[in-house]
């Protein structure tokens, strides 16, 4: 809990830096609203580029929490305990950033409410056949689920903070803890709720990134119209999500002095998961490229060669190096799978996955069916600033979160220590009658 009460200069510098990036991004956005999307580098035929690349990238990063919290929780992997809250926080913030981007990339964002299905004065519902609308619902569902999944396990920690602080902090945590008293009945409710959320959030997360992939796969555009996109994107999302999580954990470990809680074992286990995802990612990429090449369709091959050999070749091969060639040896060889090793692998993977998203969106659009209409794309300063702003926003949200909420789940750790064989049992004497006895939930005194 110490980081919540002691702030050092480094924190303020970090907040200032990320805050200024966010401010720059906001200014760039206002500039874009005033002048029009023309200030971006888009043209005909490349109507999506950095905007959708970043959208898919952030939604992908948001799959960190789901895998760690939900799947590891269900698999009873006890080593996950210190890591769950970091992961769930990444999910909520990355998802929020990813959800804002589609609203901001439209030509007339002030009419974004046209996508909300309500009985409007325009007497028309939105088009439910559009993958963009599926995005709207999927992301909204996932956001709601992730926020609950993040919030529920924090309630007992908020209650501990309420009980141990005073003044404005006491009132603040008092409101957030929702009258938690730690009764067996409440613990049982919490455990049930978390169990349900853990099971429910997995199909939601899988469907979200599948639906995002269908923004591409549901069109006829060469090398977009591929049935592999659904699973490919989900695998890529989990891949980049774990990498982002490792980076966040390493940063928190150093800055908040959590060396006792975030041990090399955690990085090693996450590193093994990352290795698995890297191999899976390589498999999907290879399968997609091989089948395209073998099929030898005219329009597909134009896009294929532009990525492998021509103007996008440097990006493509850097991506392969970053996603596969560097991480696999680091993560596979036990001696290299240290905290530093996994961090290096994660950095290259985050870069590589961003490039992968870019290579999915832009080469296909540059070379569609009619060669007369082929084009090229270059980003402008506005798109670069917006992208930097999104990274700044992520950092800023995370920094603020770490100031108000303990990054390590205190009660889960204690539960793990006191009852090492039972993963979910709360730290209360196991009373067989506790569940049946009706206890009224008392409000905080």
């Amino acid at each position, binding site marked *: 809990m110490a980081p919540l009460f002691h702030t050092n200069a480094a924190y303020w510098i970090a907040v200032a830096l990320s805050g200024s990036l966010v401010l720059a991004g906001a200014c760039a956005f206002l500039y874009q609203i005033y002048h029009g999307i023309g200030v971006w580098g888009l043209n005909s035929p490349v109507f999506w580029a950095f905007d959708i690349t970043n959208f898919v990238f952030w939604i992908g990063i948001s799959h960190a929490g789901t895998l760690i919290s939900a799947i590891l929780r269900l698999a009873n992997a006890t080593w996950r305990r210190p890591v769950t809250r970091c992961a769930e926080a990444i999910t909520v913030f990355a998802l929020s950033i990813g959800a804002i981007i589609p609203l901001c990339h439209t*030509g*007339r964002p002030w009419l974004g409410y046209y996508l909300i299905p309500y009985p409007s004065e325009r007497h028309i519902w939105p088009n439910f056949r559009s993958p963009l609308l599926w995005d709207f619902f999927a992301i909204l569902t996932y956001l709601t689920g992730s926020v609950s999944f993040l919030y529920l396990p924090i309630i007992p920690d908020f209650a501990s903070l309420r009980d141990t602080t005073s003044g404005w902090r006491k009132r603040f945590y008092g409101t957030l803890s929702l009258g938690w008293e730690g009764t067996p009945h409440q613990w049982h409710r919490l455990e049930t709720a978390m169990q349900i959320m853990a099971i429910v959030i997995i199909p939601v997360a899988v469907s979200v990134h599948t639906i995002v992939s269908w923004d591409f796969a549901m069109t*006829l555009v060469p090398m977009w119209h591929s049935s592999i996109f659904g699973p490919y994107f989900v695998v890529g999302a989990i891949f980049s999500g774990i990498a982002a999580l490792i980076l966040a954990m390493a940063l928190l470990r150093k800055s908040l002095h959590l060396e006792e809680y975030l041990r090399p074992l955690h990085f090693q286990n996450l590193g093994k998961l990352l290795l698995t995802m890297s191999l899976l990612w390589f498999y999907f990429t290879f399968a997609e490229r091989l089948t395209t090449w073998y099929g030898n369709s005219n329009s597909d091959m134009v896009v294929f060669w532009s990525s492998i050999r021509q103007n996008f070749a440097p990006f493509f091969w850097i991506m392969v190096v970053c996603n596969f060639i560097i991480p696999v040896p680091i993560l596979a060889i036990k001696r290299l799978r240290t905290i530093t090793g996994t961090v290096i692998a994660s950095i290259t993977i985050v870069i590589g996955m961003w490039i992968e998203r870019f290579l999915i969106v832009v080469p296909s659009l540059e070379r569609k069916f009619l060669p007369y209409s082929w084009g090229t794309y270059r980003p402008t300063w506005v798109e670069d600033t917006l992208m930097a702003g999104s990274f700044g926003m992520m950092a800023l949200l995370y920094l603020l979160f770490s100031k108000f909420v303990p990054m390590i789940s205190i009660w889960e750790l204690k539960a793990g220590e006191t009852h090492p064989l039972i993963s979910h049992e709360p730290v209360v004497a196991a009373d067989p009658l506790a569940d049946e006895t009706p206890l009224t939930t008392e409000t905080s005194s």
Partner: protein
Amino acid sequence: MPHKWAMVIDLDRCTGCEACVVACHAENNIATVGDDQAARGRAKHWIRVERYWEGEFPEARIRFQPVLCQQCDEAPCEPVCPTYASYHTPEGLNAQVYNRCVGTRFCANACPYTVRYFNFYNPVWDKPLNLQLNPDVSVREVGIMEKCTFCVQRIRGAEIQAEAQKRELKDGEFNPACVQSCPPKAMVFGDLNDPTSEVSRLAKSGRSTKLLGELGTLPNVNYLERSS
């Protein structure tokens, strides 16, 4: 019987003069984007004349192909628009409802013919060209997608006139601006549901092909192949 509007373009007759492009700009309030924007790939021509070179000098030949919105029966741009701005009319046209467009640009990506255009900036007409705008056609603001409508304002105008006069539309009574302005008369427009129309006759020609027909978009523009 409802109308089904279609077009036939004879590639043997097309000389690549681009009168259709100019006429379309004049009729539909399409501004020029300027050379800087055009160099960045943002030229807005609802109908464009594509030019392909075949062979090497001195046997080099040019092929011209006017490409406009094909008004596909199975338009890939329609299912993807989240606000129904791109929708199919009962007369077989793919309509673009400017008021509903929020500018996601998904339709432009989905269109295999790249015939959809985006207003990257607010359109600008240098004086006195701003006085030349067609009052029958709206001026689209920044952030809106637009494309060829088969001059729907002329279609509706003629239909309303015919209804007021309690008669049927005659074949060739009106034409979109591009068809009207084509000097070698390479373009023909009409009702496919009328078996006596010129369009129906030409569409049955042995030279009739569809652009990217293999994609299954069922376009309503027939191209008569060059016989030379």
